[in-house]
């Protein structure tokens, strides 16, 4: 037990960022503000949203007004309510996707990097093949096969992000593996499983946090892309990408609110996570390795 390196809290770099005056703190705060805004919107959707997002509540195509902050869409649904509820779907899909790919990518990366040998070669080859291929195309194929539902979209997205985590974790594991304290742990006869979980994994926490925020930002864009192509959720479920798609023809007629707000939401939310990731990665000087 003496040799055990004290696992750092996952949140420690975040906490440090907030309290220390390092460059990038502004980015971090801005990012956090945006993300918290959307999370708040998702959590308190029933109270914030003035109307039922799935029902026809007024005449179609009403421009933004006090009654309908962002206007109404082609079938008389309130755009603002759909944005508010849409944040739930996006966050749900994106978080489940990211957690899912972490749950698979991280253990495999650890195992592959730590054990090496045949397992490592096979896994690396597999992951590299997937990684080299345009993620969106693969996600499209998977989403099309699974059919439209939030969970299925999450699975499709998770699938394409597994290699990102795998590669990152494997690389880091390889470099930590040869450090002295691991050798020491070996010498003490601590089982491999324990070394991986207790000694290596905690040291990867920072990396994971950075990759997490950046891949969430990316996943938001992928989710929106999938629903833009009609492969994500089934209406009347509110979803930004889908609303953007069906709004396109009206957009060119001048009904700009149908496209403008959903697209802006996608961008802002992705930006929130990207800002956090950027700030953290700068702090951990990981910028080049993503």
């Amino acid at each position: 037990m003496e040799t055990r390196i004290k696992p750092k809290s996952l949140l420690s770099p975040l906490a440090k960022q907030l309290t220390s005056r390092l460059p990038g703190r502004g980015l971090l705060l801005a990012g956090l503000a945006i993300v918290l805004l959307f999370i708040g919107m998702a959590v308190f959707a029933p109270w914030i949203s003035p109307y039922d997002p799935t029902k026809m509540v007024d005449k179609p195509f009403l421009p933004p007004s006090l009654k309908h902050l962002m206007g109404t869409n082609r079938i008389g649904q309130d755009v603002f309510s759909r944005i508010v509820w849409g944040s739930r779907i996006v966050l749900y899909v994106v978080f489940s996707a990211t957690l899912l790919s972490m749950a698979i990518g991280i253990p495999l990366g650890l195992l592959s990097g730590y054990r090496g040998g045949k397992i490592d070669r096979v896994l690396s080859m597999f992951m590299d093949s997937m990684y080299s291929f345009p993620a969106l195309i693969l996600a499209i194929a998977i989403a099309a096969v699974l059919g439209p539902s939030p969970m299925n979209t999450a699975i499709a997205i998770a699938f394409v992000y597994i290699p990102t985590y795998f590669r990152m974790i494997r690389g880091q594991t390889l470099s930590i593996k040869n450090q002295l304290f691991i050798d020491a742990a070996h010498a003490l006869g601590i089982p491999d499983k324990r070394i991986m979980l207790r000694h290596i994994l905690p040291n990867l926490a920072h990396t994971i946090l950075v990759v997490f925020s950046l891949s969430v930002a990316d996943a938001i864009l992928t989710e929106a892309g999938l629903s833009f192509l009609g492969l994500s959720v089934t209406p009347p479920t509110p979803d930004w990408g889908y609303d953007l798609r069906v709004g396109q023809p009206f957009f060119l007629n001048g009904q700009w609110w149908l496209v403008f707000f959903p697209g802006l939401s996608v961008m802002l939310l992705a930006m929130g996570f990207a800002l956090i990731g950027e700030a953290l990665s700068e702090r951990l000087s990981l910028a080049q390795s993503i």
Partner: protein
Amino acid sequence: MAKKGLGYYIVVRALMIIPTILILYTIVFILLRILPGNPILAVVGTRNIPPEQLKHLEHLAGLDKPLIIQYFDYLWNVLHGNFGVTLASPMGVPVINYIATRFPATLELTIWGFTFSVIIGLVTGMIAALKRGSKIDTGMRIYSIVAYTLFIPWFGMILQYVFGVILGVLPTGGRIDPRISLQTITGLYVLDSILTGNIPALISSIKHLILPGLTLGIVLSGAYTRLVRNNMVDVLSMDFIRSYKARGIPRYKITWYALKNAFIPVITLMGLQFAILLGGAILTETTFSWPGMGTFIVDRIEYRDYNSIQGAIIFFAFFVAVISLIVDVIYALLDPRIKY
């Protein structure tokens, strides 16, 4: 491995393409067959066709064979350069014909998006590095994040609306004015019109390329901005640069030197970006009605056209793999520190 030289490295990297493609092909093959429905059903749809004829059509398409046979049949054909024929409307067109017209479209779009993104990235990154620590630097930094998180269809539509509908100066879809006939040699319209000396075609195809190219370019430029800036900052703060400065070597020369050095990691990123670019091309193609590979794959998924999708993916995978191989080799040549 490290001592066997560049040639060996290239061979090994080239051989790695084979398993890469096999893995992707297998994933796609399985995905396509999991769900009920097949290309013949997609064509027949709700049409009132007798069951015997349905069987006959499925037989013609080879869909009555065991899956394992279908798997190896197709693989065998691809090895002989035969990507099969389309299975859904239109039936029986060689998939390679589609790839031959669709791929150059995607490539052309990608090249332009790529060029735009590198130029914008270099310029913004350089400015940021030279004005390090200033408001401009911060502005460029924010630009790189905003650009990265722009949602392509949204950004594309806004450009379409502004330049296509309101100002009416640029076309919003397609590759070339339909009334201009252009003899295609490479399938890259800009290149073809230069080769054939067709000025109207050249102007038209460039005009058609600007908006989609810019959409893709701006979205991807963010990554370069950041990378160029950081690298230039590193180089500019090195000791020998300082000594150059002290010796009074002109500023532009130093900048040029720094830029050149900052370029090496940019090349690596270019290799990685290329795959992302091809993916982003799907959304750009959809938004701008660009008849490329992305829209082709999406169209064919609706019909569950096995051969087309498999063929397109294999081709894509091969192309991406070759590009990343080339990038790796260039990288290895440029940077003597790299051990391969």
